[in-house]
């Protein structure tokens, strides 16, 4: 078979691929849409398919392969008609995912990572899918299932084998339901506390109505005066960002909403996308008017594909009502929003990587400078803000800068959504003013017996009991929203090892320290877990972490060692209790036990020197 061109494709497949490419005008910038559709229809991206896509879009095959091989939800080997993706997050593990996975394996007769021989089902793990408040959870094609048990896993497997569609697992009349009903049948919102800005009832369109009567310069001034800072985690001043984009000379400007909340334990945007999609579109439209943009992109993480129909319906509704499209509000103001789905890549939450992904490229961060506000999407001035940030902006235009600024405390104004999960009685989303302590949040969530809290997820800070009075704000404990609670029965090193495996999986691989260094950190933590670490290994962890932080190109690498560094600082005894001087007289950091594993396997026996229970 000729694997380099479309000639190896069956005619019907070639036709379907051609139709998919034609549907987006053979535009290479829509590569992610093309590959997602081919994956959905043909269950893999074959070499021949890549050849055809390349010739349709005017790219080389290797360029298409570069994209196809980057995203976790795209596959270069045939997948089953149904793909079950079990959420592998640490919260799901502690909530019983290993037992659920074993039940799926038994019922389906395949192991995780395999596809059944008849091509019906694939079973795999995937990192956090944004459902930690109802773990263990899984994606089954485009639907999600929550609160799984081994028994339920068996039932699901049986139903799928009997020919039920994933949608029918949610409801027999799934297609008759509204998109909002479909979403809420699958996922609980778990809104535990509604604050003044976002989760209390909000009037429809009030912010945009006022913005349409305002000069763009005044809109930006209002946002700057409110003190609103980016809610995705980095905390850059929103008004400043808009001003920079507005001040850059350009024919076209772009507004992008970052709905790619991939930080483990974060799910607050999920609730806004479900319950406040109009407010989000309103905020994006206000930003467009403020900076003079005519094009918007809502980048939705691939894990939230179950919200696609809901968002498309909202966007169409707004077009029908003249709130998107040409001449918005009867003015000389055109703006529309395109939904861009991701395909399984945490790194795409990084601003530059997200723009790369929107451009149809692998999700690699871009070199800064230039910054997106001057040269972003396709080289155009681009504002990228988080879902929550746009929603707040719409509310600020309605209620005024002062109203927002009065909430919270110095440097951290307004309210913030926290997604709380793990070992607590009331996991879910809490909208609270900035400045409360971790202890206060734990009391609300019923997590008083916490022994450790990961504030800000894997890339955040892991704190112990003696620091629960610290304050949730940009100046103390910053978080994009993730607060994961662990009780005293959890193994800190297991959590750290998981978070490091997450970063190894999610590093884009562009720069040396993040690509390679995180693998070394992960291996080193494995030594601690196995009780094989030397006292010198603690210094090794700190030293290697320092190099990765100082030399990495983007925020992933500059934060990935934080699970290790913050636990070394706040849980030193956990490490001290596991280390012991090596009896092997082998240099520190070398793991002899792992090194001889291959030899043990090949020789089918242990080592006379290194296995204490050795016998012939």
């Amino acid at each position, binding site marked *: 078979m000729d*694997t380099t061109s479309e000639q190896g494709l069956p005619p019907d497949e070639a036709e379907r691929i051609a139709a998919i490419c034609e549907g987006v005008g053979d535009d290479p910038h829509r590569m992610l849409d093309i590959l997602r559709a081919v994956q959905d229809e043909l269950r893999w991206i074959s070499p021949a398919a890549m050849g055809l896509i390349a010739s349709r879009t005017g790219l*080389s095959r290797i360029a298409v392969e*570069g994209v196809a*091989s*980057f995203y976790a939800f795209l596959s270069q080997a045939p997948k089953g008609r149904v793909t079950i993706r079990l959420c592998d997050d640490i919260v799901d593990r502690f909530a019983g995912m290993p037992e659920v996975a074993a039940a799926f394996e038994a019922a389906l007769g395949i192991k995780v990572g395999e596809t059944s021989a008849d091509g019906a089902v694939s079973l795999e793990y995937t990192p956090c899918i944004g459902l930690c408040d109802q773990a263990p959870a899984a994606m089954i094609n485009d639907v999600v299932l929550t609160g799984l048990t081994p028994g339920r896993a068996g039932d699901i497997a049986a139903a799928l084998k009997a020919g039920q569609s994933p949608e029918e697992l949610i409801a027999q009349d799934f297609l008759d339901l509204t998109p909002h009903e479909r979403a809420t049948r699958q996922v609980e919102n778990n809104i535990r506390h509604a604050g003044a800005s976002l989760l209390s009832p909000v009037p429809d369109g009030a912010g945009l109505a006022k913005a349409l009567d305002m000069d763009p310069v005044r809109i930006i001034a209002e946002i700057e005066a409110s003190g609103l800072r980016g809610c995705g985690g980095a905390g850059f001043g929103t008004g400043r960002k808009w001003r920079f984009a507005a001040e850059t000379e350009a024919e076209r400007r772009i507004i992008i909403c970052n709905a790619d909340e991939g930080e483990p334990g974060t799910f607050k945007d999920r609730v806004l996308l479900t319950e406040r999609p109009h407010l989000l579109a309103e905020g994006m439209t206000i930003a467009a008017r403020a900076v003079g943009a005519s094009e918007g992109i809502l980048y939705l993480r691939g894990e939230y594909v179950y919200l696609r129909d809901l968002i498309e319906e909202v966007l169409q509704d707004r077009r029908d009502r003249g709130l998107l499209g040409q001449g918005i509000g009867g003015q000389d103001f055109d703006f529309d929003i395109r939904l861009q789905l991701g395909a399984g890549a945490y790194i795409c939450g990084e601003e530059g990587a997200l723009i790369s992904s929107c451009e149809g490229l692998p999700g690699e961060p871009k070199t800064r400078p230039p910054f997106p506000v001057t040269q972003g999407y396709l080289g155009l001035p681009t504002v990228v803000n988080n879902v929550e940030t746009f929603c707040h902006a719409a509310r600020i235009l309605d209620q005024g800068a002062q109203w927002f600024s009065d909430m919270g405390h110095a440097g951290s104004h307004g309210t913030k959504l926290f997604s709380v999960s793990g070992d607590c009685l009331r996991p879910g989303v809490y909208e609270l003013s900035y400045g409360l302590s971790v202890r206060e949040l734990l009391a609300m969530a019923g997590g008083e017996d916490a022994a450790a809290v990961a504030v800000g997820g894997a890339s955040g800070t892991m704190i112990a009991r003696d620091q629960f009075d610290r304050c949730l704000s940009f100046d103390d404990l910053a978080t994009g929203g993730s607060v994961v609670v662990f009780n005293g029965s959890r193994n800190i090193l297991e959590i750290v090892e998981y978070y490091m495996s997450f970063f*190894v999986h999610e590093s884009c*691989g562009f720069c*040396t320290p993040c690509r*390679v260094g995180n693998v070394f950190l992960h291996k080193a933590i494995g030594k601690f877990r196995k009780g094989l670490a030397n006292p010198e290994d603690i210094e090794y962890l700190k030293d290697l972490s320092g190099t990765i932080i100082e*030399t990495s190109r983007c925020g992933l690498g500059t934060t990935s060692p934080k699970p290790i560094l913050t636990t070394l600082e706040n849980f030193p005894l956990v490490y001290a209790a596991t280390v012991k001087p090596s009896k092997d007289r082998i240099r520190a950091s070398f793991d002899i036990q792992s090194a001889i594993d291959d030899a043990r396997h090949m020789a089918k026996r242990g080592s006379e020197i290194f296995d204490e229970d050795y016998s012939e």
Partner: protein
Amino acid sequence: MTGFTFTIDGVEVAAKDGQTIMEAADAAGIYIPRLCDHEGLRHQGACRVCTVKAGGRSVAACTQPAAPDQAVENETPHVTKLRRDLVEMLFHEGNHLCPICEASGNCELQAMAYRLDMTQPTRFPYLEPCRPLDASHPDIALDTNRCITCGRCIRASEEVDGKGVFGYVGRGIHRRVAVNGADLADTNAAITDFAISKEVCPVGCIIRKGEGFAIPIGEREFDKGLIGHEIEEKKRD
């Protein structure tokens, strides 16, 4: 075009507007170690060996614009230590067996290790990947076990040859350089391509068949002097 000055390790350096720190340093005869950067190709900022401290922040000198009056730290013990860590990572990521490698003596990775004083076994684990050899092409072979994913061949083929023979595939530790086809023979690569020439691949990954050991060990590129000497000699002139 207007210009300005800044300092590298206390030495005043002239720069033109829009120049990167590395471009200005090269012109001034100050060598900043680098592996993924190559004169005439687009700057990439991937290997991070050119990391310098500028205004207290770590930046890649190849992509970071020089700024007026900025104090840049280049060959301080701290920066050299960071670079040594990065070069060690590259050694441990692939399979780099200098004594049996044809590129020994011409290899920039090996030469950089000498320049950075990497003189003893390192602390890192060996990842020992198992990557297949591609000897399909009549004139060229690829041994990606020695590849450091610098991407110089990718840019050379795209930007100079106008071909696009190479590209990155995969993600994270699985990211690697691959070819635009089933194997190299399936592409339009030619021995005369700039991308295939001796100066593009910094290691022994791209092998030109039939010219192995043409120059004996001891008379090779970096037997003459430390990597970077040709730039530093500009300063003495």
